[in-house]
């Protein structure tokens, strides 16, 4: 075939970039690129994409993998303790009250991260209760000590509803909800304008404490972990406002020791 008349296809250009081209075609492709600046710039763009990807993610392979990825440990758990651990976990989940969800997931399936489950549940609860006019909460904010004592007892750890007056929010009250890991506390706050924000708070074994943001069409949420509790602050999808409130809540929860018994 006459190289001069042979049009180099995009498939061949990709193969050239990825070193998949047969050796006897390389010369022809290089000659084509020298004569066709449009194709040459395409090839250059693809190469630069590859460099960006390697620069962004290449370093991950040099990180020390977390302990939970230790092969000996995973293999050992599977052989010796897997059944016992699964049975114990299933029993615990049943006692806590998350039995339906647990069995639906299946014992051997890896559950979605706490992060995703907490955020989804928190946003569902937000959307459900924020529109409620007459009964948005079970215990009103005026009965704060009682509210805190009750929810701390049910969640099983001392809780603290942050005071958000400084960012213009008043505690409407709270309620108990089922959550990804069992009993979960749900606090509602209200701005003078009537805008509502909720703080969802349940136990987690997750130790990744990074503050994360998630957004849907109309609502958004911040998620973080402090100690053995996961928190999700939900509100209208205005990131700056939500961030100010999340920051205020985060700071209080982070710097104050939990008040025992409310």
């Amino acid at each position, binding site marked *: 075939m006459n190289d001069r008349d042979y049009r180099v296809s995009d498939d061949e250009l*990709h193969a050239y970039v990825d070193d998949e081209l047969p050796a006897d075609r390389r010369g022809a492709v290089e000659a084509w690129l020298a004569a066709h600046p449009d194709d040459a710039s395409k090839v250059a763009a693809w190469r630069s994409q590859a460099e960006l990807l390697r620069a962004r993610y290449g370093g*991950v392979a040099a990180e020390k993998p977390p302990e*939970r*990825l*230790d092969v*000996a440990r995973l293999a050992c758990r599977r052989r010796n303790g897997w059944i016992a651990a699964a049975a114990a976990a299933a029993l615990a989940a049943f006692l806590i009250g998350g039995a339906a969800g647990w069995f639906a997931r299946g014992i051997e399936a890896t559950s979605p991260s706490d992060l995703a489950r907490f955020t989804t549940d928190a946003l569902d609860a937000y959307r459900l209760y924020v529109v409620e006019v007459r009964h948005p909460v079970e215990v009103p904010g005026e009965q704060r000590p009682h509210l805190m004592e009750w929810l701390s007892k049910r969640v099983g750890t001392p809780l603290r509803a942050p005071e958000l007056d400084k960012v213009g929010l008043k505690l409407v009250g709270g309620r108990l909800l089922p959550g990804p890991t069992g009993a979960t506390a749900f606090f509602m706050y209200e701005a003078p304008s009537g805008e509502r924000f909720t703080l969802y708070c349940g136990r987690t074994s997750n130790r990744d404490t990074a503050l*994360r*943001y*998630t957004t849907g069409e109309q609502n958004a949420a911040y998620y973080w972990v402090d100690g053995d509790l996961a928190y999700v602050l939900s509100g209208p999808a205005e990131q700056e406002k939500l961030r100010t409130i999340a920051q205020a809540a985060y700071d209080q929860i982070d710097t104050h020791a939990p008040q025992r018994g409310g």
Partner: protein
Amino acid sequence: MVLFEKKSFAAKTGARLSDFRQRIEATIPALRRYARALTRDSETADDIVQDTLVRALRSEHLFHGGDVRAWLYTILTNLNRNRLRSLSRRPTLTPIKDGDAAMMGPEAGGRDIARALDELAEEQRAALLLVVLEGLSYREVAEVQSVPIGTVMSRLARARMQIKAYLDGERPPLRRVK
């Protein structure tokens, strides 16, 4: 340091890493890299890697030679696809750090490569990452994705075209519906 910890753990449990397990272990750094780029979230990525390892170890008796690495990539790619299907109705999580461009929301943020990846359909993203980041051949990617090589090449071509358009600042055509 790392080696020492692993040895002492193995000694304690009386477990000796088989050749199969050693090959799995050697692939973990690459699996984490692939998963991180595939999910753009470190926690989710390690969840999937862990699930991949558990499944691989469980199937040790089914493995009769062959390329452990390609097999692990296959498991991971499938698990991520299942995850996206089951999560398709959940909100998207974007990790943020103080002062990060992501703080400004999707509209104001920089056009970086991670966001460009977000714009791709899952199978295009996987094909591109397996070739470019993980260095798999077209043939290996075809096996991982269970499609003909021609399909791998068209996925690759579309991924590169869309990333180029995104980085050049064009509006993404039409947001794909999951």
